[in-house]
């Protein structure tokens, strides 16, 4: 071995030693998080996955030898077996579906409106309003639910206000009627005769019950403030130049909002809707503290059903299976909205307009500069 190659080898060894050292310290620094995530996230998820395909009865370890693999039976019970479990899951899915469909758009619009309102420079006491709107979000959901039970009781504040208009308010948390049934108690045979997941089409189309509607209002009330904060941060990050440029171009305020501000908020919109979707599919606290799925199972949700199946009825496999189905639903919904909200390529026709407009703007721009120049000359 010549001196040169020996030196080269030494260098390379040292270099690999350095990178190895770095890798080691990298692992060391990330180890706490890896251990915590593994212990509290990965292992429980894997165990839950195992429970969902096992006949574990809730006694002792799910990994003990007495527990057997039973394939998709638990999933079958809630998805296609045709029994009470399937009907319960269908009902829960129906309730939560309407909850999501109504809460997500409303809370997003409300949050954006609030953010725009408190973002105005002209508004006096902005700090106060920002705090006031954000307040429901930092209050415990249990406390707010209890407050809601009082507000929406038969003789509560909400019904008192409704009574001013001469209308007798409903018995909110005890009213199982679907709001889109408009008081009808039976529907056409085509809708009542056919079922999906054990729930008739008539019930699927009935919308949320009046009780669930109260929870929908609750969700908008509490999360509106949280998402307002996200929108507010995004609005304050927008540079004023673009807005001013649009003003110079003669865009009115509606045009400025829909064509200039909103497109720039797309990443925040994505975040807000994604978080909203996930939160709405997992609704649990309100049901657990408030109604336990009553009246007539119209506030039953998959998350609560999963809990009762496991902890109260010893159906641990079914409970875990529901949790995993819920997981799939959330993923699917997120993917759908990702596709819908994705930045689309501008179509050829549209691109044509834009280049034409740009060309036009260029000539106008040159003219403007020329005009400015002549003014400049006059001033000097």
């Amino acid at each position, binding site marked *: 071995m010549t001196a040169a190659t020996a030196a080269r080898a030494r260098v390379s060894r040292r270099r690999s030693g350095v990178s190895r050292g770095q890798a080691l310290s990298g692992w060391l620094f990330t180890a706490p998080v890896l251990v915590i995530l593994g212990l509290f996230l990965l292992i429980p998820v894997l165990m839950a996955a195992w429970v969902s395909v096992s006949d574990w009865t809730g006694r*002792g370890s799910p990994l*003990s030898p007495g527990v057997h693999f039973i394939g998709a039976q638990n999933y079958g019970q809630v998805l296609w077996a045709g029994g009470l479990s399937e009907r319960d899951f269908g009902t829960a899915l129906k309730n939560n579906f309407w909850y999501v469909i109504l809460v997500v758009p409303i809370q997003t619009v409300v949050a954006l409106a609030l953010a725009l309102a408190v973002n105005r420079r002209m508004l006096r006491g902005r700090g106060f309003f920002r705090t006031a709107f954000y307040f429901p979000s930092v209050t415990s959901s249990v406390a707010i639910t209890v407050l809601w039970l009082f507000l929406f009781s038969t003789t509560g504040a909400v019904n008192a206000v409704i009574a001013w208009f001469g209308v007798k308010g409903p018995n909110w948390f*005890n009213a199982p009627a679907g709001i889109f049934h408009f008081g009808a108690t039976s529907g056409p045979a085509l809708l009542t005769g056919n079922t999906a997941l054990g729930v008739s089409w008539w019930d699927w189309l009935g919308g949320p019950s009046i009780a669930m509607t109260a929870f929908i209002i609750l969700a908008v009330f509490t999360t509106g403030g949280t998402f307002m904060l996200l929108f507010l941060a995004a609005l304050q990050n927008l540079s004023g130049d673009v807005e001013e440029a649009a003003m110079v171009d003669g865009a009115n305020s509606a045009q400025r909002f829909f064509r200039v501000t909103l497109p720039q908020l797309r990443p925040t919109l994505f975040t807000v809707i994604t978080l909203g979707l996930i939160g709405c599919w997992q609704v649990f606290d309100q049901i657990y503290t408030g109604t336990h799925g009553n009246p007539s199972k119209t506030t039953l949700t998959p998350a609560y059903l999963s809990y009762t199946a496991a902890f109260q*009825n*010893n159906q641990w496999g079914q409970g875990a299976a529901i949790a995993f189905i819920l997981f799939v639903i959330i993923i699917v919904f997120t993917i759908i909205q990702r596709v819908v909200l994705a930045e689309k390529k501008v179509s050829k026709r549209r691109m044509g307009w834009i280049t034409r407009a740009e060309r036009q703007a260029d000539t106008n721009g040159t003219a403007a500069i020329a005009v400015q120049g002549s003014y400049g000359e006059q001033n000097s």
Partner: protein
Amino acid sequence: MKISRAVAVIAAAGLAVGLTACGSGFGSGGSKQDNTKPLSILIGSSGDAETAAVKSAVAAWSKTSGIKATVTVASDLNQQLAQGFSSGKPADVFYLSTDALAGYASNGSLYSYGDKLPNKGDFYPTLVKSFTFDNKLVCAPKDFSTLQLIINTDLWSKAGLTDSDIPTTWDQLSSVAKKLTTGTQTGLVIGGEYARVGAFMTEAGGNLMNADSTKATADSDANLKALQYVKDNLTAGDFKFAADVGAGWGGEAFGKQLGAMTIEGNWITGSQTADYPNVHFKVVPLPKGPAGAGTLQFSNCWGIAADSANKTSALSLVEKLTTKADQLAFAKAFGVMPSIQSAASEWKKEFPSLAPFLDAAKYAQNVPAAKGASDVVTDFNSQVAKLASGDPKTILTSTQQNLEALLK
């Protein structure tokens, strides 16, 4: 290189220790018995009075036996029991309801000690039946109550009714309910659920399941008759469900005078004197139905965990807690009824006005106890809540199907 290997070894060892720790937490309970180990007792308490009474009874036992015992009040008994059983470290002694029995008995979580009880023959036979699994008494009934008719005596006399008007048949019940219905006040307000409406089913000679919970009997003519009777009175406006008058349960509606009568168990006496001391009431037997007298009964037992490390002491504690002296002390402290027949006469002497609750023990029926039955009952309740606009036949048919599915 050497360092990283060392770290890997340490990390692997750490993970292994972590997993074994976790494994021991989930370990199956081949627990060693030790007669001196302290006991933990988990109860679902109705309030301070009950907690204090149980604590003092357990403390007295600790004193004589020399074994430490701590009483914990569960915030959610079912959930905490489930967590205990799955972790392999359950409470040694706990309250257990009839509807949870089958689930835990079938997965081996419970120590079936009924045959070892010296006073086994003293318990009411119907209670013994409700805590029997695989033909063996699993646990000792703690106390119980039946449902009876509760009457607001002031509203009763205000409507011009006397003691001779106390209803003994369904028709009489309907007619006094009609007389007691005025303005915001309804004749009879009950919870819209099986646990109250079921009393009418038993009076008509039916119930959701047979006495042993081995056969579904939901779609019987008797049940149909009962539901139809309740529906007719709901439609007439003389009966109402508690939720429909804005009350959480029958007792609340009764206390707020939204209803002049209700159907509840003996737990109503405590809540009435505490929350509505100005409402005067009287307990009378439920009217007889087409098939005679009938009612439902509710009970808890003292469960002992199969994984308990000190079953001998747990059993001796339960023996003490079910003695006549202790049960009468509990009755005085928080108004429950003793589960043993030998305490009946003394209890009646102490609480003569509540005698109808105890007299019904002879014919009271149990709620369905088959594994998974509570799910079916929940579903039945969700339909009964809409009974006024629903079809009794449809409700019973679907309940029958659900119950039959459990027995397959």
